[in-house]
């Protein structure tokens, strides 16, 4: 992951460097142009990312490789599944937030917030239907009172019109 991040930073700073030099200009008419700071800092990020990359590669090489025990495939498979579960679990909020964006657009903020709160507590936190409902009601009320009624944020109305 660290190697990947270093490569991403090098690519991004490379793009900033190219655009800063070719499109916005480093020095224009003897004065710093719009690309001046982007160029300087992209070079800095590139150098530092290269250092981070070299260090990450060295650390990876130095680490002892994990040997798979011969003739014992099933624990490895289940460990792999567990490891993927662990990796994907933190992305659940992102998935729910994306669903939330569409829900707010098409159903309106009140219904969307109620659905997110209820479904999360019911299916992810494994609470009973009644407790999930009791949890989602004050959340909807809070969002409605603060953001819709007090701050007058113009949320999409959705099919229900509220």
């Amino acid at each position: 992951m660290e190697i990947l991040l270093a490569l991403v930073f090098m690519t991004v700073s490379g793009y900033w460097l190219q655009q800063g030099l070719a499109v916005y200009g480093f020095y224009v008419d003897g004065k710093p142009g719009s690309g001046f700071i982007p160029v300087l800092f992209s070079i800095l990020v590139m150098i530092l990312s290269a250092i981070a990359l070299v260090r990450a590669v060295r650390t990876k090489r130095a680490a002892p490789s994990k040997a798979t025990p011969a003739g014992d495939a099933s624990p490895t498979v289940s460990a792999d599944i567990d490891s993927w579960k662990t990796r994907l679990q933190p992305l659940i909020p992102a998935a729910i937030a994306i669903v939330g964006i569409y829900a707010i657009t098409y159903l309106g903020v009140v219904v969307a917030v109620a659905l997110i709160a209820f479904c999360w507590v019911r299916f992810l936190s494994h609470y009973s239907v009644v407790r999930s409902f009791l949890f989602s009601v004050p959340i909807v009320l809070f969002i409605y009172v603060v953001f819709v009624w007090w701050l007058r944020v113009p949320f999409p109305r959705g099919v229900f019109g509220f």
Partner: protein
Amino acid sequence: MNNFELLFQGFTVAFALPNLIAALLGGILGIVVGAMPGIGAVTGVSLLLPMTFKLNPTTGIIMLAGIYYGNMYGGAYSATLMNIPGDSPAVMTALDGYELTKQGKPGKSLFAGNIASFIGGSIGIIFLTIFGPLLAEVGLKFGPAEVAALIFLALTSIGWLLGDDPVKGLIASGIGVLLSTIGIDGASGLPRFSFGNMNLISGISFIPLVIGMFGFSQVMEMMQPKSDAHIEPVKQLTLRESMLDRSEMKRIFMPSVRSALLGNFIGFLPGAGGTTGSFLAYVMEKKIGKNRDQMGKGAIEGVAASEAANNAAAVGAFVPLLSLGIPGSATTAVLLGGLMMWGLRPGPLLFASDPTFVWGLISSMYIGNIVCLIAGMAIIPFLMSFLKIPTKIMAPIIVIICIVGSYSVNNNMFDVWFMIFAGIGAFYLKKQAFPIPPVLLAFVLAPRFEISVRQALSISNGNAMVFLQKPISLGLLLFTTALLLAPLVMKLIAKLKKSYK
């Protein structure tokens, strides 16, 4: 008018009913949010920022400041009761606080923490009253070259100070600067790096970025299989059994005062903040304190040192924020963003151009500090039930506030998408030990840095020597170089000493 007359005038602003309510509400909200494990000051302030939109700038910032130092009080609660620091500065509090809880004295620890926080906060505010205007006067002598050198110092020191790995810290600062270049170029007025996206022409919105990097990434961390497991049941506490006797008050007084002085000084430095302050104060107390042998085994002096330094540093960070426009911590960077959002420009001129706001804010801190002390004591029993809210309930609440809060900034779904993107990015950066606060601090500081550098170079017809010809900027650049080289020199000295032995 001298400072004390201005301060007195500021009290008339602070005592206005809406401002008084804002300080009270902010303090209580701050304590409650700060007490929740894993949320912390910066997440708390960024999540609550959209709620202040409707208020006028002075009231809004008074409320945010209340949330900020209320958070510092609150951080000690979960650290003491559950060994889970509410935020990073409370890590040192947990060392002795939790030991006291195990000994059956959680109330004493919380009481000592509250008193020490009050002493730390008070010393910090007095120093802010005295040094804020003085520093602002010095700041008036700063031209573009000096401002650029000062921000360069801040940009490099935040990278060093906020992470264990200087390379990663500096990469984080660099990324923050690159992100800040998206949008209209402040000097030429031309759009840059907008990738053909209409929403990026005016630049990245600050609040969705903050909410994503601190609030949303926090929920992603909560979803990792861990936590809750080691939370132990907290017994009910009463105010009476929490009180400190006279000898205990005596024991915490001096450690609180010296830790507050140290913490306050550290708070002045860009990027150092409460974590460094509480850590150094704890180490100092362990070296020179009367009860040093008991430190780490349940000494109230340990709790007091950490909490006093933490609060003093929190207030100390307001000195460079208000007088130079340089945030001393990630949370003050969020406050800086809030000030800018309301059209206020912190810096040397703020004391002269908007004295009602500045002195109203400083005066409200005196009131807020007392409010937090009283509220901190009074809500001890109430917090017991609040702290028991499990993360599986907290997570959906935070996600909903993240979505709704990001949307409400510009009434635009693009900001929600961007918030999610920032949250995922921050989560994976944190997993690889990249510090996140430098990204935010650099993002806030970079536009001013860019304008100052380009102005200085334009005035000198492109001559880069301008930064070395002015004594203040030369001094700042030499200090920056020393700061950057110090770890390498220390390493070299250690190596030479080893080879000599």
